[in-house]
């Protein structure tokens, strides 16, 4: 087992600095976050409040009719602890007409619609509140592609994307995220009884461990098997990471001219700031 423990004090300093800097240099001083009741958005919220001041953070709860009461209650714990502004905007009335048009719609399509509806609300509130949407996706989820493109992965900046799930837990403990949020089974809560690990077919601990070897330590698949993972699991993870690359890049632009966005028109977003 690799020890993924991190110096949380240093991570906290870098990440709050990142949030503050990248929001202010874009001309803003506020953040908008979707607060699901889960650990990732809770941590992002704590970091944003520390970086910008609680008064500059707006969180939004966006339950669907099947969302669990726990999710709402856990989000409330964060709202109360940080004394941040919050809105609750149920999405049932917005998404049900679309879902109702297709009686054979499967859970994945419904889940994607919900994730994208939440994105629409967040970006709309971002305009109203004059703040940027802070993303909450972690490294494990990004590498596995366990997100909805233009849905929960949509954001203006992402402070958690280089932290594995175990490191998200560790940092959450360090910044004071309430224990019930840290201890519960991770769930996208898109349908009753859904858990991430049940849907993925493996645990976050297994995923963190193998991704750390493959990505951070640059192990070959053979070395991963020698380290104790089954060949089938190693293959499954590698394939998942590769197949979901499309979620990690901008759509390719067909090159025609001598200078094309993405290929030879290269500037950071922070250009000029």
């Amino acid at each position, binding site marked *: 087992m690799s020890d993924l*423990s991190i*110096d949380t004090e240093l991570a906290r300093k870098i990440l709050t600095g*990142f949030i503050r800097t990248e929001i202010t240099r874009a001309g803003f001083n506020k953040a908008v976050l979707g607060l699901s009741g889960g650990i990732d958005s809770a941590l992002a919220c704590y970091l944003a409040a520390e970086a910008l001041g609680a008064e500059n953070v707006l969180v939004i709860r966006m339950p669907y009719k099947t969302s669990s009461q726990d999710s709402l209650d856990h989000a409330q714990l964060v709202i109360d602890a940080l004394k941040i502004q919050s809105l609750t905007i149920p999405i049932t009335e917005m998404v049900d007409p679309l879902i109702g048009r297709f009686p054979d719609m499967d859970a994945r399509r419904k889940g994607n619609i919900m994730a994208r509806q939440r994105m629409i609300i967040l970006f709309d509130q971002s305009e109203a509140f004059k703040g940027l949407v802070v993303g909450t996706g972690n490294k494990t989820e990004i590498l596995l592609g366990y997100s909805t493109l233009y849905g929960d992965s949509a954001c203006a900046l992402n402070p958690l994307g280089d932290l594995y799930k175990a490191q998200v837990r560790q940092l959450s403990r360090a910044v004071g995220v309430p224990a019930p949020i840290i201890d519960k089974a991770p769930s996208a809560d898109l349908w009753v009884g859904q858990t991430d690990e049940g849907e993925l077919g493996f645990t976050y601990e297994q995923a963190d461990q193998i991704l750390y070897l493959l990505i951070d330590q640059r192990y070959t698949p053979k070395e991963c098997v020698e380290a104790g993972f089954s060949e089938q699991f190693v293959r499954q993870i590698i394939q998942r990471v590769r197949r979901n690359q499309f979620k990690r890049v901008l759509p390719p632009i067909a090159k025609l001219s001598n200078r094309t966005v993405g290929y030879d028109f*290269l*500037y950071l*977003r922070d250009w*000029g700031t």
Partner: protein
Amino acid sequence: MKLKLALAQINTVLGDVEQNLAKHLDLINEARKGDAELIVFPELSLTGYVLQDIVPTVARRAEASDPIFKKLLEASREIDIMVSFVEEDLRSRFYIASAYLSEGKVLHVHRKVYLPTYGLFDEGRFFASGDGICAFDTRFGRVGMLICEDFWHASLPYLLWLDGADIFLFASASPGRGLPHPEDSGRLDSARWVDEINRAYAGFFTSFVVHTNRVGYEDGLNFWGGASVYDPDGIALIHGPQHEEALTFAELDLNQLHRTRARLPLLRDERTALVQRELERILNSNHGSRE
């Protein structure tokens, strides 16, 4: 003889030379008020680091006819200045460069030799690499300048040492990476590594090693600051804060060179002719390649 130094670990505006110059002039003023005789700025202090296609628009030459350098040269009448910028040569090749300014003149320009083009780095795509390494004389003694990746290769500090440098001025824009384990140093892996090698150079070369590094963010990259000065015994004289802008002062007792080298004559005993002979043999025999 003493040398009072000011190490400016600054944040920069990406691609806005005027704004960065204003910050330089403010800090130069502050350093003078603190009686510093030399102020050193980090890599690409006039431009920011991840320039990509901005490079040609911020390039210049270190000479009085350049409006930016004109102001810096004026300021250098009161205090010596090491500043870093994008240099354009007469045939429009672009370099990452450091200039040493003193008494209204450009004493030396170093062009970065090693351009990291791997992992998160892409310097070789946008810049030409320098093709020389040379120490130069200042009013405080002989000095050598290197830029970031230059001193990740032991050969360049070694050459500067042989060329007479007793004071090494290193400038970086080092992106922070590698979160440490909670029981480790409290510094990023990249910060720890740079600090350890700078200390080692001070000891190996019984010389002063001065390092200044940027702070701030560029998109998702963070820069960790942590300026340092090591004396010829490898003892830390100062450490600037991590991840925060700061102007850190240090006093170098240049007589320490005499005391350390009297005790530890590594420079006297260095077998340069042997190095030359063996290097020629190795390069001619191709033993290094292992193909």
